[in-house]
């Protein structure tokens, strides 16, 4: 399975023609074609390009709604590059 970094996930925010991806439970799902994820936004509260594992716990629906979307890859919980140093 393709490995996807947090930076790659963040870039897929659904804006300006970019794909809309969301992270959930270690996987990345493609929600670009979903009516409910237009412009990378879902129900005014959730944004694409993020790991929504924690947010989904408070959602009025279960994980099955996310798991029905195409899987893009596996989320690697570490950013590459940037200005931060790992300790």
């Amino acid at each position, binding site marked *: 399975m393709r490995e996807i970094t947090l930076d790659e996930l963040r870039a897929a925010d659904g804006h300006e023609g970019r794909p809309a991806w969301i992270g959930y439970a270690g996987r990345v799902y493609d929600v670009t074609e979903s*009516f*409910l994820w*237009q412009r990378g936004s879902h*129900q*005014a*509260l959730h944004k694409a390009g993020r790991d929504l594992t924690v947010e989904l716990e408070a*959602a*009025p*629906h279960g994980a099955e709604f996310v798991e029905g979307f195409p899987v893009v890859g596996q989320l690697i919980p570490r950013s590459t590059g940037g200005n931060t140093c790992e300790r």
Partner: protein
Amino acid sequence: MAKVAREMVEKAGVNVDQLLELLVKNASAELTTYYYYTILRVNLIGLDGEGIKEIAEVARIEDRNHFEALVPRIYELGGKLPDCMKAFHDASACPPARLPTDPRDIRAMLQTLVEAERCAVRGYTHICNMTAGKDHRTYDLALAILNEEIEHESWFSEFLGEGPSGHFMRHGETSPFVSKFLK
């Protein structure tokens, strides 16, 4: 706009802009569902379809009532409806309840209807959770709508063989919970 009313909601810790976006999305879902249910109802024909037509009609009228009831609250809080109907449609909190490819497939019709209601139940539950104890007026409205959406869901669910709805159909009246907001 009801300036102090909005201020009170903000002070209670509700993100009013976020709430307004949700209210507009749900108002859109109600009006677009009213439109799509019109097409579904027209196509509920024959021995199987006729039995469902009346509850589909009640759900259709009540969804329009929900739209009517939501609009004043949107403007009270300083929000507004999009000036473009297409933008309004596309902002819907629920996917379009389009006519199934085979309208004679009553089970597919019922699936479309029940999925639309389930989306609404999720949406209003969320608004209730968001406003409970903070925005009393929006909570009261969302709860009234939620009560009716749950009844719609259970009617269609019953026809799908998922178990009894637990209540009887309306007797001529519509919106027993929401009507107080329409007077």
